[in-house]
């Protein structure tokens, strides 16, 4: 658990919190598979209102998962790949943390062996 991986974990935690809701996870999946799109496009064929989607998009934007880019009169929403990539490395970070801890254990027990 180095300070460096710690920092990235601290950044990852809000990502998981933001994704901890089915509608938001669905919005992210839709942006991933369908590419950047407007709110009108995102709500097409779904029961979720525009207003609700806007709210969810803002939560996702606050967590750095998506960003909205103004294009003419509407806002186009797209994924911020970097942040999601960090999140999907969660298990790798945990694995790395064990490497660090076991390295410290090795120095600890071998130092006074």
């Amino acid at each position: 658990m180095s300070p460096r991986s710690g920092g990235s974990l601290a950044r990852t935690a809000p990502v998981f919190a933001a994704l901890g809701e089915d509608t938001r996870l669905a919005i992210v999946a839709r942006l991933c598979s369908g590419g950047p799109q407007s709110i009108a496009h995102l709500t097409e064929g779904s029961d979720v209102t525009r207003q609700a989607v806007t709210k969810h998009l803002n939560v996702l934007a606050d967590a750095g998962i998506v960003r909205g880019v103004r294009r003419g009169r509407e806002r186009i929403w797209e994924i911020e790949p970097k942040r999601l990539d960090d999140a999907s490395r969660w298990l790798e970070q945990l694995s790395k943390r064990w490497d660090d801890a076991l390295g410290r254990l090795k120095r600890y027990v071998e130092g006074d062996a």
Partner: protein
Amino acid sequence: MSTDRIEKKILLRAPRSRVWRAIASPEEFGTWFGAKLEGAFEPGARVLGRITIKGYENVPMEIVIDRVEPEGLFSYRWHPYAVDPKVDYSSEPMTLVEFHLAEVPGGTELTVIESGFDGVPAARRAEAIKMNTGGWEAQLRNIERHVAA
């Protein structure tokens, strides 16, 4: 890497009794792990403490001792990486961390296994993201196409 477990093997050039003490004594465990723990490592015990690693100072830590088999196996359950003060981890399933010790020529072979990630929401989401998104290259191509359009 399997999604449900992390497994590490390391050769420690120290006698098994020494390694056991470093792992099964709360004070020594805390020294290398980076935590200040209070309580005895006894089966069923809930041991509370705080992390001492730079960048994590004072983050609470809690482990529930599972098995204590002198010089053979020490295990506990916990919420892995439960460091976000805004998240209530108590309702989430814990993972199991096992330390297996074996005497080998030249020292002690230690195997650490952390398992049970399939029940942990953060880990599940990490996998869901990986599997549902079809890869970031495809996503980046989408953005590229959109920008170029």
